[in-house]
């Protein structure tokens, strides 16, 4: 049995989860998400962890493994770090055991990951360095349009004649949007156009990794954008991919969940080797 924590330091938010893992018996003890908003992410990670422990009535020395992921390599109190691809894959399988592919759409990039039933990464592909397939881009557009982030999805679904935007370059896409606003295109049609553009790129990633059939679980900050989910399913049909893309209410925690569960796995392995210090010598 292992008590573990998973901390996912993203570009926009820090996600923290606590787990108790005993073989196949996995119990989720607590969770919280903190927007970074110009704060020091390392200090925020520490405070979030401490406050979550306090809320759960737990102490740090009860933990067998504190795992970080995302940009959490420098979290001083962690036991180990896992790459985000590895943790999103495992977190997705925990949230949706039927999933065999994962789309992690974070603030700065999107990743398509093919996984097996154990959460092992079989192949993956990331969007290129351009930010037009990312949450940050969508957040910027929402700000230009003067709408709140939670309104993006519902508004996008009201579109009746979506406008095409550049799917390659975030700068050109933002120029497209400014032109659309001046031409009087409605916000729903602009947003749906952006969603379709992003969905087209993401569907191509799934094609490249040969995602096959079945459920694609969306994780990361944009997983609950219902407009993007709808656009993605349209793009999957258009590209003849037999995949069903869906989000999960806890999709945003997928990376942190994967880190905590892999942390428990590592703890057990390290125990067999005589503990962390001995295993490292």
């Amino acid at each position, binding site marked *: 049995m292992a008590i573990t924590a998973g901390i996912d330091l993203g570009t926009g938010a820090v996600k923290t989860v606590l787990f108790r893992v005993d073989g196949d018996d996995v119990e989720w003890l607590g969770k919280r998400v903190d927007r970074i908003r110009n704060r020091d992410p390392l200090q925020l990670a520490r405070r979030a962890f401490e406050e979550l422990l306090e809320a759960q009535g737990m102490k740090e020395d009860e933990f067998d*493994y504190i795992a970080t992921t995302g940009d959490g*390599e*420098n979290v*001083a*109190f*962690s*036991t*180990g*770090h*896992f*790459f985000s*691809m*590895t943790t999103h894959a495992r977190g997705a399988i925990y949230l949706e055991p039927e999933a065999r592919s994962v789309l992690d759409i974070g603030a700065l990039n999107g990743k398509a990951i093919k996984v097996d039933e154990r959460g*092992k*990464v079989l192949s993956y592909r*990331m969007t290129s360095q351009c930010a037009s397939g990312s949450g940050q881009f969508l957040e910027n557009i929402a700000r230009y349009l003067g709408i709140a982030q939670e309104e993006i999805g519902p508004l996008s679904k009201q579109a009746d004649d979506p406008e095409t935007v550049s799917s390659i370059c975030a700068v050109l896409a933002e120029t497209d949007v400014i032109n659309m606003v001046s031409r009087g295109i409605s916000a729903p049609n602009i947003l749906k156009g952006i969603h379709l553009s992003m969905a087209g790129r993401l569907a191509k990633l799934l094609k490249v990794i040969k995602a096959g059939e079945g459920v694609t679980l969306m994780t990361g900050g944009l997983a609950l954008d219902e407009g993007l989910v709808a656009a993605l399913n349209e793009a999957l049909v258009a590209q003849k991919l037999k995949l069903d893309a869906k989000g999960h209410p806890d999709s945003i925690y997928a990376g942190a969940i994967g880190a905590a569960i*892999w942390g428990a*796995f*590592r703890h057990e*392995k*390290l125990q067999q080797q005589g503990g*962390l*210090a001995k*295993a*490292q*010598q």
Partner: protein
Amino acid sequence: MSTADIIKRCEALYEDLHFSAAREWKAADPSRKVIGYMPVYVPEELIHAAGMLPLGIMGGGDQMEVIHGDAYYQSYICRIPRSTIELGIAKRLDFVDGMLFPSICDVIRNLSGMWKLMFPEVYVRYVDVPQNYRDDIGGAFYRQEMQELLEALEELGGRKVSEDDLRASITVYNENRALIRDLYRMRSETPWQVPSAELYLLSRAGLVLPVEEHNAMLRDYLASVVDEERPIKDNCRIVINGSFCEQPPLNLIKSIEMSGCYIVDDDYCLVNRWLKEEVPTDGDPLGNLAYAFLHNSADTAAKYAETEEDVGAQLVEIIKDTKAEGVIFAAPSFCDPALLWRPMLADKISEHNVPYISFKYAENSGQMAPIREQAGTFADSIKLWS
């Protein structure tokens, strides 16, 4: 001196492309001479015995813009000769009295000729090494090479070098090599205690400081670092191979460790570890150095291997000794020796079921995200699935 102070000093030396420490050493006595050398190895004992300062030139790193150097080489040539030429043209090496170009590859061999033409006032020598490991053939050849180098240094310095001078220099370099071995051993046994970026900076400092000063620095570090309270991380243990000539930027070394890999052995700054055991201080000093080269020296793609079995044998041994769980082949772009050897080394370690990844870098590589991605997924695959 505290660990932090030592590393701060090493960092300043690493970043100083005007080589102020060597300039100050030379300025302290007008009769002093400085002899520059390039990777991978030169017998520094000879330079030291002649009363001169050996100065390791590892290119311009990631802080120097190469403008003139690019005009001398085609686009498919690595960066270290370009940035070394840039150092020369920019007069950053104008205090150096001699330059040694060891036998690494055709590019560096040709650079020795270019240096002669570009800087005719500087003593320049291409340092050839044995291609045969019999004492009576390769040993005799290499001893003669060293004898010629020693005579040239005597002429440059205006004084004879006695056998006792050479023995004294071998003694002080034996101590240096022993301290470096202690440092590497400490990192391998407790990798969380000796971060690779610190080890690298300490090793690099040895290329620009008098060896006696470097020995004192190493002793201070070894004494102070044991008291540092540094957390143990659940990382995998890996060996770096292929970085023996053009050096990676410091950020690359940091990125690999940040990605979840403890580097437990590497081939950076090999001059400090080239001779693997103590060189005897009795008998014929040049003969002893030649024997050590033939029978007790490190293995790289830049050194001739007599049989196919020899290729990668040391790497396998290092993996076993350090209990490494994988290998990262990190070679400079366009480095013919490292890149041509890589498949053979990869085959050899695959026979022992050792996983590996490969990537290329340049001394001025700035984008670390792809490196972190590769090293991170490699670390995860070892920790979770091996």
